[in-house]
């Protein structure tokens, strides 16, 4: 029998071997789809622990990256047992790095953490043109739009993108993230929230839903 608490803690501790051993033993027993979904939830619980430890300054960005990798690996092992079943989606986030900026590490961290928190994330990549943000937002009607950037030039791009979204009547909440983002920059851009901390970004998004 898979001890879900042990699995959650092992993932929270980023104990890769232990997580993988637990899951391999588990899938060898031909679990039902329901049991597999519980295992997924337990892994996501571990990810929430990682987020908390990150906010408390116990973990750092490198640990978040490893945690994202671990979660992907874990779900990969569970996939055959999952069948068509999917965990409940609590909301949709449209996410991308704004035009002029080619960076994606921070964006990818935020994606994997918000997916673990139950969001469906539509990631439209890097150097995303304004029109692409607008068109995609109109198509999928996300509750939340996340924008990322590493260089200071991203601030102007974020502003242009937000202006265009508003002009097109998109009323999703907008959160911006990445190193150059500050309170002043957030006001300048006209976003609803900002953060340089992916875990905090997930919390803000959860509060919005």
């Amino acid at each position, binding site marked *: 029998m898979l001890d879900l608490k042990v699995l959650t803690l092992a993932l929270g501790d980023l104990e890769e071997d232990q997580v993988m051993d637990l899951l391999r033993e588990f899938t060898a027993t031909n679990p039902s789809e329901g049991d597999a979904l519980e295992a997924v939830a337990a892994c996501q619980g571990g990810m929430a622990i990682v987020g908390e430890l990150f906010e408390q300054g116990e973990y750092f*960005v490198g640990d978040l990256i490893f945690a994202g*990798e671990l979660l992907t690996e874990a779900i990969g092992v569970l996939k055959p047992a999952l069948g068509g079943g999917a965990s409940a989606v609590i909301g949709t986030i449209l996410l991308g790095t704004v*035009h*002029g900026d*080619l960076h994606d*590490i921070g964006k990818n961290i935020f994606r994997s953490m918000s997916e673990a928190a139950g969001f469906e994330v539509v990631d439209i990549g890097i150097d995303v043109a304004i029109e692409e943000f607008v068109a995609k937002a109109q198509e999928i009607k996300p509750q939340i739009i996340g924008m990322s950037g590493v*260089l200071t030039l991203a*601030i102007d791009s974020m502003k242009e993108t937000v202006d265009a979204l508003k002009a097109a009547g998109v009323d999703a909440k907008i959160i911006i993230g990445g*190193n150059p983002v*500050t309170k002043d920059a957030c006001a300048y851009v006209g976003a609803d929230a900002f953060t340089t901390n992916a875990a905090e970004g997930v919390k803000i998004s959860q509060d919005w839903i």
Partner: protein
Amino acid sequence: MKESFLSEQTVEINSLFEDVFDGKTPKRVPILTNIDNAFCLEYVGFDLKKEQYSIEKTLQAIEKTTCDFNGDTVLGITLRLPQLYSILKARNFKMGADGFLQHPEVRGMEVEDYDALIADPYKALWDTILPRIYEGLNEPSFLGSKTLAFAFFTFISSMGQLENGYTEIASKYGRSTYTMASAASAEPLDMLSDQLRSFSEISKDIRRYPDKVVAACEALLPICLKAGITPKSNRYNRTFVPLHMAPYMREKDFLKFYLPTFSAYIQGMADAGVGANLFVEQDWMRYLDYLNELPKGTLMVFEYGDAKTIKEKVGDRHVVSGLYPIGLLKSGSEEQCIDKAKELVDIFAPGGGYIFSFDKAILRLNDVNADNLKAVFNFVHEYGQYK
């Protein structure tokens, strides 16, 4: 550079830096900035997609910018050569739609390359790693050699042309001939992370292959030292060391993977009489005590942190710098910008051991309001006088 070639004003500004690095109080707080040549090109109205390819145009832009802004050094560091990346078909530096060169997350080294890197890093670079990053090196027969010949020549001739140009501009406008980076090299773990394994992969490697990471850093140390100590390096012609991975690691990982070869590198340079200019990127506040133990007189340009704590913890032994937020230069009023400069000078300058600088590299014209930048330079010149 022999002093007899330099204008009187250049000699005088050079002496501000020399005093700081000799542990003496200079006449005035010197200013050492990290401004990209792209800023200069845009400042004079050039288009990155065109003039950026020309060393001559780049120098023209740098000259005009240096002339218009009251900095202490030549403004505009030319680090990236687009023509070189084109010749090499580079994957690690790509232009965005506006022509600005950036680094997407790519890697030149795979996990299975660790053993070769540990055995002979210089060989592993040329055998496997560089050809992964620079696709032009893989062209068959003579074409690959031709690419390398073109690239090597472009590098040597462009760098030579730039160096001469900078010295001329410095002398013409009475600016210092010292720069942030007389030479430059990352420390071992960052060298392994930046272009070889990448930010994301190294974060996994330290958990999955800890011994290999440690061995790779040790193998890279002599490479870093050789790069950091050139024939012209000394206490004033210093080596730029941008610091990357440490703030993204837990302290226990930092102590195991980062600190040992980082401090050996800075110590090795100091033993050879070479000063290090550390660009302390991201937030290092939890590591200040370790920074304080580095060889005396190391320059530390901080991106984040509390100025008072920094001055207190490392300001006695080292030269502190940075923290001025370039974001304020973009959105603040002139008065706010000057107040901020005053605040930092008041905390950092007493007793010497301070060089004025920003928290981040200024890359593009739109990163700041140019008038604010001018005002802050002028203010530091006046207000930064030691009596």
